[in-house]
């Protein structure tokens, strides 16, 4: 029992014993047990969704296609979408995925980095791996809007996730509007869909940092993180 290992004593006023004997146990309710079993069941064993919804879905798709063919000629042509905005949206989607599904495995980052660099085509001469405030918790290759790049995930001491995506910049031009002087750089800073974004060009690369640090105070902290990352990370395109 672990108690014996804690300074080899049980002179804790019986707290350990009290916990073991008196603390209410909360066994999993039957519904949770069933739900977990269901969730863990191999996919093949479950009835495929299309067996239930296949026919109605096919009908709906066919109807939609007919309607589209009928009204397409009268639709106004859409204006060109800003490529920077497309990347921003993709980064935000990626950031949301990170918050909900991302891993926090700082122990595997040293091994993950070389693979991420190799598969992304973006290498890092230097990379900021963290300090007392934030630390690098994941690195992986990514693919956004037809651009292969690298994605680094940081977490700060309070559990905020910061997603840092580096992709080939191509012809993307960052707007002058929204540029803010931070230390010796002047990136674009904006709030979008409940997240904060900092974007900048670095050599031929487009770099975007996203976080949920949106209040004025939090944004100040996000800018500090930007300075740390920006000054200690040197990405370049391998090919």
């Amino acid at each position, binding site marked *: *029992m*672990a*108690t014996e*290992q*804690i*300074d080899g004593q049980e002179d*804790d*006023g019986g*707290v*350990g014993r*009290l*916990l*073991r004997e*008196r*603390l*209410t*146990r*909360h*066994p*999993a*309710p039957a*519904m*949770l*047990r069933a*739900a*977990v*079993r269901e*969730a*863990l069941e*191999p996919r093949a064993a479950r009835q495929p969704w299309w067996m239930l919804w296949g026919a109605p879905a096919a009908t709906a798709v066919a109807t939609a296609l007919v309607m589209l063919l009928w009204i397409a000629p009268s639709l106004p042509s859409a204006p060109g979408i800003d490529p920077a905005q497309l990347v921003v949206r993709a980064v935000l989607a990626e950031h949301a995925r990170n*918050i909900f599904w*991302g*891993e*926090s495995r*700082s122990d595997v980052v040293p091994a993950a980095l070389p693979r991420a660099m190799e598969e992304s085509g973006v290498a890092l001469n230097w990379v900021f791996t963290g300090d007392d405030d934030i630390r690098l918790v994941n690195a992986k290759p990514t693919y956004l809007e037809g651009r292969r790049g690298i994605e680094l995930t940081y977490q700060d001491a*309070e*559990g905020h*996730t910061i997603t840092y995506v580096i992709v080939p910049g191509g012809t993307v031009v960052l707007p002058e509007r929204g540029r803010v002087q931070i230390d010796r750089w002047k990136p674009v800073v904006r709030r979008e869909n409940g997240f904060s974004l900092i974007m900048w060009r670095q050599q031929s690369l487009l770099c975007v940092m996203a976080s949920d640090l949106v209040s004025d105070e939090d944004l100040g902290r996000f800018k500090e993180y930007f300075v740390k990352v920006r000054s200690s990370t040197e990405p370049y395109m391998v090919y």
Partner: protein
Amino acid sequence: MADDEFRQQALQHLDALHNLAVYLTRNGSEAEDLVQETYVRAMRFSHRFQPGTHLRAWLFQILRNTFLTFYRLRERESAISEDGVPEGEAPMFHDAPSRDTESAGAHMDLDRALTRLPEEFKTPLLLAEVEGLALEDVARIMDCPVGTVKSRIFRAKERLRGFLKDYQ
């Protein structure tokens, strides 16, 4: 380890995971969500589990990391008194075994006292004392050295003793 075997073994720890989830989230439905999410992640990353190592500890680690990611912000938003102790939290007593009034009172006091501990103290205390995990496993779960775990458990017990005195 085959998927089926992994699944069977992982399910054996459902009660323990749910128990910890309840004490972490202090909310029945959130605890259930947390446990489900833990299993989904465990299955997704089952290939990373090394057979021969401690599956129970690995699952606890996933549960804690998931909790920190999803629930901590919400926890911080709850009312915090000056000494950093959440106020107005109603401990959950469902599934409590039926005993005499005095014994039930002791359960309530202990549950309430435990609720007042910060997560950094509560988790190692529960894992080591209630779940019986080795300190090395607890350290791995908490992502800190064994010495830190010992110190946190010691301090958790000290605080718990103090809280329990408040209820006497």
